């Protein structure tokens, strides 16, 4: 098994078929990379959403605690 | 299996079966339209309308390609092994167009039985071989005589 092209330029040119071959590979790898990274983005979004929920929950609790303290007779 | 699940399984199978049957019937009814092109024997049998945009496909008969000296005009014959069809064309042929290889042409059937093509596409086969191996195989044409198109 040996490298089939004489130079890098010949490898890129591929006897005139280079643009077709490289476009096909480039689009494929971009699409596959998007598939692979989408779950990570979703995870980050979910985490942010959960943290927001937690902050809201914490604020609600502290407000409630203050209110119940205020309502209690000294 | 639980009877309720069995019932749902049967429902799913019936759904798939019915939709398959429906699609099978539709494709059967349209079976002529599902073909991308007519074979040369369909032209010989008179199944192809004159002066309408149609496609013809077949093997380019070896030795039939005649190029005009002063223009791009070219004529060649297509075959499916049963009949031959003459095609005339006046533009640049695709790189993979060759005698003994399959081609698909789009054009009109003329009254004299020839097809005037305005587009010629090369139909390559499913074989992949390195150049050295292809040479040692004595340059066998992929569809010689239109055995398959």
């Amino acid at each position, binding site marked *: 098994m040996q490298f089939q092209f004489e130079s890098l330029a010949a490898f890129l040119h591929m006897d005139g078929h280079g643009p077709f*071959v490289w476009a096909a590979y480039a689009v494929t790898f971009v*699409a596959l990379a998007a598939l692979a990274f989408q779950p990570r983005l979703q995870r980050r979004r979910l985490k942010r959403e959960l943290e927001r929920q937690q902050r809201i929950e914490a604020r609600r609790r502290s407000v409630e605690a203050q209110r119940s303290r205020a309502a209690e007779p000294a | 299996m639980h009877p309720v699940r069995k019932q749902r399984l049967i429902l799913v199978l019936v759904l*798939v079966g019915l939709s398959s049957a429906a699609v099978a019937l539709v494709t059967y009814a349209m079976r002529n339209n599902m073909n991308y092109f007519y074979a040369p024997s369909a032209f010989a049998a008179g199944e192809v309308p004159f002066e309408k945009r149609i496609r013809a496909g077949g093997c380019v008969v070896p030795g039939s390609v005649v190029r005009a000296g002063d223009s791009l005009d070219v004529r060649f014959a297509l075959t499916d092994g049963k009949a031959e069809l003459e095609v005339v064309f006046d533009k640049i042929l*695709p790189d993979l167009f060759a005698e003994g*290889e399959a081609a698909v042409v789009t054009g009109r059937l003329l009254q004299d039985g020839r097809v005037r093509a305005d587009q010629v596409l090369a139909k*390559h*086969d499913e074989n992949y071989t390195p150049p050295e191996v292809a040479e040692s195989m004595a340059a066998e044409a992929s569809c010689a005589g239109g055995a398959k198109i």
Partner: protein
Amino acid sequence: MAWQWFHRLGSPRWFYQKTSAWMPWLALASVLLIGAGSVWGLGFAPEDAKQGNSYRIIYIHVPAAFLALAGYYIMAISGAIGLIWKMKLSFVVMRAAAPIGAVLTFIALFTGAVWGKPTWGTYWVWDARITSMLILLFLYIGVIALARAFSREQVADKACALLALVGTVNIPIIYKSVDWWFTLHQPATIKFTEKSSIDPSMFYPLLTMIIGFYCLYAWTLMAHTREKILQREWRTSWVQQLMRGKSMTESKAG
């Protein structure tokens, strides 16, 4: 008792925890195999006697088309299992399979188009193979769109499963279209019942790519399924714990 493993499989939490260990290995295998297969196919496999170098697109076109078809069966069968056994996880797998299948079908169509130009002489023809493949893309997009059309997940799951099941009829049509009708597309190169019509020196890189795409499919399907599980189960204590545990270690590290 024989069904016990089957019902355990239906637990999203069990699936999430079980697959955690596999993810990095599947990712590594797919990156290595696809990387090696691409270099092999692009630079080291010999050129084709007739098509020259343009045939090198086969190394992504065929694996993508393979998985686009196989992935549809995975989506439809998951939908059927979800309908019959009311298994939550099965619907999640079905929903995760839709975008992956759509991307693979798009890759098969796109690479086919740019391969068609230098060989056939055109980017696109409406022959039976290419048209049925376009219908496959619409089916995948249909499942994705249908899922978004319903606000209630359970209704969306059922509707998607029904559409996916009805669409299965298209798969044998795609596969056999090149034999049943006259098409511009050539018949299959890789045959299961007889000798494949491709030279071994060109077949081994193709096989590497096909195995690599299978690994990539398994990896991305699991990754998408796992994220969808977290989204659906975010109220449960195990997801809350999981997410909090992660964010705590991250904030410590930062």
